Each structure stands twice: as C-alpha cells, then as structure tokens.
C-alpha cells in the first residue's frame, strides 16, 4: 500500500500537468463534442521546451529544478483572425497567404533582366471577387516597391469593343491579345510594362503571374 502511495505522490505533479493539456488531458472540455472543431481555427507549431522558454519567457514554465518526470514539448498556436466560414474557402486560401505570395510574385518581376526591370510597372489583377482582387493588387504593388521596382497606380485601359472580345475568349489567348491591344492603344507606353496576376482556374488556390512589355506576353509562373 505504502508503495502505491509513494508512486501516487511522485507522479502527482506530472498527472496534474497532463490533466491540463488542452488536447489530451482528461480535463479538456470537449469530451462529447469532439475536440476537432475548436482546433481547426489554430495554426500550430511544435517546438522544444527550451526554445519555447526562450521565445515566450514568463509564459512557459521552467522545468522543476530536481528533474522532470515528463518529456515536455511546447505547442505554440495562433488563432486565425477570420474564423472558418466567414470568407469563401478560395478567398481565404488566397488572402491567408498573401504576404508571402505577393513577395514571391514581385520577386519574379524584380528578378527580370535590367531593361525590363527598370520600366514603370502597372499591375492588373484578374480574380472573380473584386474585393479580393483589390487586396491582391495592393499587396503586389507594395511588394514590388519594397523590391525597388518603379510602380504606378495607372490602370491600363481598353476600348469597349476590345473588352467585349477579350471577355469571350479563354484566358490562354486573352492575356496575349490584351497585351497587344494595350500597346496598340498607347495605354502601355515604351517605358511601361504590365504585371498581370490571374487566377487561371477557379478550383486553384494559387495565382499565376505574367508580364506584358512591347506587345509581348509571357507567363512567369
């Protein structure tokens, strides 16, 4: 009997700590509801206890001075700002990763050879939702400027007839054709270039990038 009392006393601190684990512990609240739903709004990262102590001083407890019965790890979670379901899935996927993807897209233009890179860049975004398109455009322009590319807020314009024709053909042909028309109508001058960002497939969660210069359209990604 005494042996088991000793075992209980020795393991009590660890048991109490385990009980407080929000996923695994028996005190975790959603025994009936299934823990999954609450966890889906979080982006988590498993890091070592030592790293967690360094990154979050005061929030991650120090191991007991006389050793520890548990092999501890820390799981750092950040709740997403927009709860699941508030925005359309594709919009959420595009917007959730916009900082990284806009930097990446701008990097493709910033990496072009000098005569092109030195031009003044216009940015055009094709995305089904205009609000999301505006966000992508803003982020891309800022990312270009941060990479030292000259950018203008000017938007390329087309005649109503051109717009009607372009709306009827598939994007594979529409972008090169639009590029030719921009140059033909002087909407895109000799010192200008256009960066086009497009969602090429409505089922995709990536944006494709191309550019138009001197009437030539090229896809970069």
């Amino acid at each position, binding site marked *: 009997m005494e042996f088991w009392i000793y075992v209980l006393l020795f393991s009590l601190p660890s048991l109490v700590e385990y009980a407080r684990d929000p996923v695994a512990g028996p005190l975790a609240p959603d025994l009936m509801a299934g823990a999954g739903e609450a966890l889906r709004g979080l*982006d988590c990262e498993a890091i070592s206890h030592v790293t967690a102590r360094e990154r979050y001083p005061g929030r991650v407890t120090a191991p007991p001075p006389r050793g520890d019965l548990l092999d501890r790890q820390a799981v750092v979670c*950040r*709740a*997403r*700002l*927009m*709860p699941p*379901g*508030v*925005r359309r899935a594709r*919009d959420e996927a595009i*917007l*959730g*990763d*916009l*900082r990284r993807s806009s930097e990446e897209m701008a990097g493709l233009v910033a990496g072009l050879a000098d005569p092109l890179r030195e031009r*003044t860049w216009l940015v055009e975004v094709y995305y089904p*939702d205009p*609000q*999301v398109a*505006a*966000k992508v455009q*803003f*982020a891309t*322009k*800022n*990312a270009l*400027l*941060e990479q030292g590319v*000259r*950018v*203008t*807020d*000017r*938007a390329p*314009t087309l*005649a*109503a007839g051109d717009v009607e024709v372009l709306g009827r053909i598939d994007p594979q042909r529409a972008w090169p054709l639009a590029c030719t028309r921009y140059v033909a*109508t002087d909407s895109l001058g000799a010192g200008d270039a256009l960066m086009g960002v497009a969602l090429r497939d409505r089922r995709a969660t990536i944006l494709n990038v191309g550019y138009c210069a001197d009437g030539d359209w090229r896809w970069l990604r």
Partner: protein
Amino acid sequence: MSHRSMSYVMPDAINGAIGGAMSYVIRHVAAVACLMLLALPVARAQTAEQAQRAELEELRRVVAGEVQLAAYDLVDELVYRWNQSPPFGEPTPVIIADLTVPVGMGTGLAALVENHLAKLLIDNPQSNVQLSACPSCTAMLVHSGREGTVVSRGLDNPKALDKVGGPGGRHGLYLDLAAEGAWLVLRARITKLTPDLPIVYSQTIASPVGAPSLLRSSQGLKSAAEARDEYLDALEDRGPYTIPVKFAVRTYAAADEFGFPPAPVIWLQTGFEAALTQARRWKADIVLGYAWLPDAYQGFMIQSRMARLLGQTRSLTGPDVYLVLGAALMTVDGVAVAQLADLGQSNNDGTVSTRGTFAGLHLGLEMRVANRVGATVFLENMPAFNDSDRIGDFVDPFGIEFHSFGAEVSFCF
C-alpha cells in the same frame, strides 16, 4: 415565398366555403394544408438560413471588435514611422484616397480607423503629412476625350480631375487592412495625383493575432519598443523600491481589572519597501516610527512586514488587497500610556517610570491603489501583555490574545 403562396390560396378557400359547396371547401382546405406542410421545410430552411446569416454577422462584429485595437496599433506605428522618417521633405497635403478593411468585415471599421488616422495626423504635424479634403477626387467623373468616354473616380483620372479644378499635383493616401491567417496587415501607399500616377511611398506593417495592444497616446507618439517599456513600467510601477510614509494609530483594549485602556498612540512612520517579485505579489518593508502627543506620550518604534497579494495579478486600475504579517518593537513613555510601562522601573529622580518597551506581532489586510496610496487594518498581539491585568484583548482566537487594533494610511513615493 411560403407566406406569399399561402395568402394567394386562402381567399379561394374562403370564397368556396361561402358558396356552400362543401366538397370544394374540403378540397381547398386540404390543398392549403398540403401547401402549408410542403412550405414547412422551406420555412424551416429559411429560418435556419436567417439564423446562420445572423450568426455570421455576429461573428463578423466580434472579429471587427477584436481587430479594432490591433488596427489602431498598426496605424499608430505607421504615423510613428512617418514622424521618424517623413515621406515628404516639407508639410504636404494628402487626400485619403481609399481605406479598405479585411474582406468579410463591414465598413464601420474603416470609418473608425479613418478617424483615428485623422486624429493622429493632426496631433503629429512633424510627420509632414497634412490631411486635405477633395470632394471631386472621390466623386465619379465622366470624361470624354481622344480615347473615348471614361467614367471613373476623380483620383483615378487626374486629367479629368484637373479640368474640374482638382487637387493639382497633390497626393493620395491609400490604406488597406488585411486579415492574413493569424496576422493583421496594414499596407499604405502614397500616389502623386499627376497623369502618370507614380507611387512615391509604400509601407507594409504586420501584427500577429493575440499581441497585446500598446494603446499609444496620439500625442508624443512613441515607438512600439518605448510604448512596451512604458507598459512594463506601469506593471512594475517604476521599479521595485518605494519609500512609504505612514500614519498609524494603535488602540489598546482595556483590562477588566483596570477599567480604562491606554490612550491610542498615533505613529508617523517611514522607511523602505521592496517588491520581492516582479509582479509585486510579495513585498516587504521596514520602517521607523515616532509618536508624540504633548503632555501625553512620546515613543519610538521599528517595524518590519511581509505582505502577500490576495489574488494572482495586480490590477492597474483598481485596488489590490494584501495579507500582512509583521513585527514591531516599540518604546513609549507618558502618563497617557502608563498601563504599557515596564513594571518596577524608576526614573532618576525616584518617581515611578512610565516608559514601556515591548514587542508586537500583527496580522492584517492592506488595500493598495496603484502602488501609490494604501490603507491597512491589523490586530496585534503583544506577548509581554499576555494574561496581563493592565491590558485586555479585543479577540483571542485559538488562545492568541490580540491586545491592540490598529489602522494606518500610507503614501508611497
């Protein structure tokens, strides 16, 4: 839709009943009942849809509420950066061309952020960004030229804007707040409103969800690091050490045999107080005290205390309560406190001495507001007077006699 179809059917059924053809009525009533039954799932679905929409709106409102302070923080940071490194060499009029909020949130947040930005720019003229109004910039203009008829906002078509007496080479400020995963991102750009619309300035600032808001004051805008230091200062109340000045009064219980108690003794005390932990959950002090009432008494004392915060954290705005345990060594002399005198002692002139020197152990509660002002009540046991016939006790829980009841007010410097 279900309500409309019911209202169209019902008059027919009533008309039929008035006509006296019962079968007609029954047939129509049955039809109505069937329609109602069929309509039920539709109505339920509508209700569920409405409930879902309401829930979504509520969710959006909650998120907007959570985002507001973070958005203010980002705008503060933007203006702080402008103060440090102004985008223009001299004060320059700028029009707020556009301010957009995260997709999925209402425009109420945009208005709040715009107001906050306006206040910041007025309070921080050193940013060189001067807010300017331009109604024609945001109005829709119809412009016919060589390239055809163009309908656009004035800002997007500077040529047309010039013709209606536009801002003439002023600048437009575009701001965008975006919710990207666990980050709130503020993007800003300034565009010169000339036909080429060149972007002359851009900035992207991000803040993770859950980072505490710095709540910076709009005047004398500080950096995030400085604001955080100030916040920590507030938490730590500018260092762990304070100098308290206390006014304390100790009253004594009368012994049954003696009939009346010694006069209350009023002490003026000062010394040194230290917080033992950064969060000020534990603190200790040591003070020296002096008491004097003409023709009544004079006294000296030294006192030390430990105190523990009741609760986990101190409040920045409300009072905190500490449990106090202390010990004091006192010496008092005077006719008003003669019951406290040491027995059998004489003065040099042969008269009976009224000086008493004794120790006390006290237990009490201290209420402290913002580590500036405090009030304490305590009960004190003086071991020298246990079972005494000169001093009684107020209470004696567990056989411990508390001979004295004290109260004090303290001011910390």
